[in-house]
């Protein structure tokens, strides 16, 4: 029997969480080292899976299947294809860097890492699940620790409000999606939750058109689709740094991915019926999100709303329903995940030292932390879609896909590029350049080597994908071909 690498990836975090529970809470360094070991292991395994996926063969690989509740057709069934392999890698990367960034957490680090790792297991689980029930199971596992992580370790001013808001939004969304999933289960008459079987269930057109919005929007709430996006900036801002990184970097992808996997792939005719108006919602995401980001005075809110804008591009790419747009959306999920993790890491580093996030009160951080400045500039260039960085590799095909399906939308959405550039330049100018305010002189400590490792790691990935897209493009493309077969487009 083959080495069950996907199960190892999924359960490494939670096992490590249990181990950490056994360590006395006072021995913080042991806790941190254990966490780092688990993060490294998950990262190495996910890199290994990513590079040993055989693109020429395609389809689902590393598949594992065990019966779980056979009488209801539920099984533990995991596997990866070209779409979710990058997302597994993304989760591994964010988990690893998240642990590094959270090194300085001093308030109950044991519990913090335990919840963070439960979250990580949930996320890995959703990405690799091939069983609809399993997907929900892991989805809820991922959402629940978020509440505690934000409300306990979050920003004191808004943490309870934000945690409550976030959790309610996401639970309502997932309940709606669950209703749709159950409808599929019963309508298919196959008596199974296996998604590959459900893909071939042949739901009637009327059924698909009716149930698609339930499933799609239920998940897309977590993807931050307008008008259900406003949990997300509040949640981002209130969360502690590593949680924001997870939250924006990975969790929002979870929503988009599940909307794709369950909504579009299982109900393709419903998708082609509803997408023409859904794409308008994503247009609002893209342009309005960028605009709102540009008028924020709080550093972290800017990044929070920029995520709304960029996730809009992901769903917009799906909504083109053609291979080019989907390809771009697939890469954008990865690229945005890394970029926004980098952004939140930087925001966290700045806030930890300045104790304010008001852009006007910051300045001159270039002098004390040049590496952070370079990292933020690279992240900024990625988010502007500057050629040579991964954002361009992702956004360019999304726009090409739009030209094929909705040319006017492409023209309007392009406005967001200018708005994004303007707020990124503003932040770079205000926070990192210019004069350092007097109260900070001598009070800003430099960053430690763990932070440096995390920032350099994330930055290098953004540049690597940007200058050498063959590391990711053929893989995502093979996944997209599979989706195209299901929705019957070209």
């Amino acid at each position, binding site marked *: 029997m083959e080495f069950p690498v996907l199960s190892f990836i999924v359960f490494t975090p939670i096992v490590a969480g249990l181990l950490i529970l056994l360590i006395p809470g006072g021995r913080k360094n042991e806790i941190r080292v254990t966490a780092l070991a688990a993060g490294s292991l998950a990262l190495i395994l996910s890199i290994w899976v990513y590079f040993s996926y055989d693109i020429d063969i395609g389809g689902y690989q590393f598949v594992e299947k065990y019966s779980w509740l056979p009488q209801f057709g539920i099984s533990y069934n995991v596997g990866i294809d070209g779409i979710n392999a990058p997302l597994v890698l993304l989760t591994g990367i964010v988990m690893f860097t998240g642990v590094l960034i959270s090194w300085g957490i001093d308030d109950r680090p044991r519990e913090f890492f335990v919840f963070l790792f439960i979250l990580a297991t949930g996320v890995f689980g959703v990405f690799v699940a091939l069983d609809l029930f399993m997907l929900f199971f892991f989805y809820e596992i991922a959402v629940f620790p978020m509440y505690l992580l934000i409300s306990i370790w979050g920003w004191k001013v808004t943490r309870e409000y934000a945690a409550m808001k976030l959790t309610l939004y996401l639970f309502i969304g997932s309940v709606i999606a669950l209703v749709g999933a159950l409808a599929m289960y019963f309508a298919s008459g196959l008596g199974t939750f296996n998604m590959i079987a459900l893909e071939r269930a042949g739901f009637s057109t009327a059924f698909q058109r009716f149930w698609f919005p339930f499933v799609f929007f239920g998940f897309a709430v977590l993807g931050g689709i307008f008008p259900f996006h406003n949990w997300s900036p509040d949640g981002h801002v209130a969360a502690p740094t590593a949680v924001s990184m997870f939250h924006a970097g990975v969790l929002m992808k979870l929503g988009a991915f599940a909307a794709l996997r369950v909504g579009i792939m299982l109900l393709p005719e419903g998708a082609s019926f509803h997408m023409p108006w859904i794409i308008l919602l994503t247009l609002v995401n893209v342009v309005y999100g960028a605009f709102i980001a540009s008028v924020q005075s709080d550093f972290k809110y800017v990044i929070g709303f920029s995520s709304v804008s960029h996730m809009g591009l992901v769903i917009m790419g799906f909504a083109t329903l053609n291979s080019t747009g989907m390809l771009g959306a697939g890469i954008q999920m990865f690229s945005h995940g890394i970029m926004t993790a980098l952004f939140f890491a930087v925001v966290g580093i700045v806030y930890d030292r300045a104790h304010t996030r008001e852009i006007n009160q910051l300045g001159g951080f270039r002098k004390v932390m040049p590496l952070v400045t370079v990292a933020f500039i690279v992240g900024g*260039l990625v988010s502007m879609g500057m050629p040579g960085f991964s954002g361009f590799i992702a956004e*360019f095909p999304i*726009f090409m896909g739009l030209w094929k399906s909705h040319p*006017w939308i*492409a023209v309007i959405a392009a406005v967001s590029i200018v708005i994004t550039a303007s707020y990124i330049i503003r932040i770079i100018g205000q926070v990192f*350049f210019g004069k350092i305010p007097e109260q900070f002189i001598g009070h800003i400590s430099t960053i430690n080597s763990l932070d440096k490792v995390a920032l350099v790691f994330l930055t290098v990935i953004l540049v690597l994908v940007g200058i050498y897209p063959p590391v990711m493009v053929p893989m995502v493309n093979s996944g997209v071909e599979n989706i195209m077969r299901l929705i019957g487009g070209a």
Partner: protein
Amino acid sequence: MELLQNHLLSLILFTPIFAALVNLILPKESNFLHRWTAFVLSIVPLVLSIILWILYNPSVSGFQFQEQYIWYSPINASYHVGVDGISLVLILLTTILTPLAILTSFTITDRVKTYMILFFLLEFGMLGVFLSLDLLFFFIFWEFGLVPMYFIINQWGSEKGEREIWGGRKVKARTYASFKFMVFTMAGSLGLLLAVQLIGVTAGTFDIIMITERWSAVDSSIFNLPIQTIKAIVFWAFAIAFLVKVPAWPFHTWLPDAHTEAPTAGSMILAGVLLKLGGYGFLRLVLPFFPEESKVFAGALAILAVASIIHGALAAYGQDDFKRLVAYSSVNHMGFVILGIAAAAFAYGTLDATIALEGAVLQMFNHGLSAAGMFFLVGVIYERTHTRLLSDYGGLFPLIPVYGGILIFTSMASLGLPGLNGFVSEFLVVRGAWPVFTVFTALAMIGLFFTGAYILKGIKMALQGPLNTRWLDHLGEINRRELLIIVPLMILMLWIGVWPAWILKVINQAVMSLY
């Protein structure tokens, strides 16, 4: 040798990146080390491009030294580079000016390491535009060059000066200038981005050679508009992006600010090479992709060209700031490039068109030399006097005779004195454009008259007249390092002025087989 033959272009393109990495590794403390490493490494692309020039066969049409590798297969974009006579000339210009600009930057003392790295990234971006035979790569490099230039102006630009922006808030002039540079170019590129995507979708490829063959025959409709309308829109999207960069009136207003605030070396590269990207875009993309639209709108381009020539000259005459004067002279001179291109677009295939295009390409090269030289000389005097106002100078010739002589020489090359380079190219443009756009060319000649006026004004106010005594004991003569920068430029100016055949030979075949 094999490697050199087969990958010569990639070597030229990536040497600056290698140089940037070397500078990245070197310790930050030693400015001396960074300066000399940068200078020595920047010579390498120059040597390679001279080898390229020697190996290039000017009697063959089409692209030479092509290399192609898969890069982004699902959308059919590949790493594809190659040179023809036009790009060869501009590559040589880039690789000549970069070492000189780095040598100029030896006076920079603030964050030398970062500065040199940015300069190499800038060179990489510029070379990439000239080398790309893939539309997507062209666009990538086009945008890429923007970033280092923004930071060079924003961080190393002139320390003095404030600008009032809306709301009465005051910002540093260099912040204002760099932002304006970024916004103008980005806004121009936005249309370019959309147009590139549209072409990629309809033609199914980004390869410039293949698009040239296919695009004019494309017949699919988008937006439910007739294909002619779409092509006209796409044509203008390209044209405006390039006109902003050239810059042509009325898109030129970013240029005087950016030039004035940029450090000397930044201005040299900005005027010397970056402006040429716009002209090159017209030659490489607009004319071959849109032969019919170019012909239809050639008159409009000619009007903009003439407006640039006249407005640039008059505005230059009106300046008291020496650097601003030189900046407006760029608008004036680059107008001739557009005029040549417009004439050629209208009458492509005729002898007049060929002459006009030869003139336009040569004018780009010549303006690169003379504008870089002029900005350098302004920088030299600014470093000594800390003022750029012409009215603060006066009668400096006796104090600094060598500098004065060089300034007059370079000014004369810029003015178009027969025997120096500017004359050859402007003559060719005017000769080619006269039968095509007689009235416009005649108007441009009037602009040429004002060119003489502003250049003489600059010389008169700086060098002649009563001596401004405050400089009596404070003004040092041009030094050896500075001579090393300006003398090669002067030799080239004279060389092209008296014997332009060596360079026209290379340009000639390329412009005849452009499309």
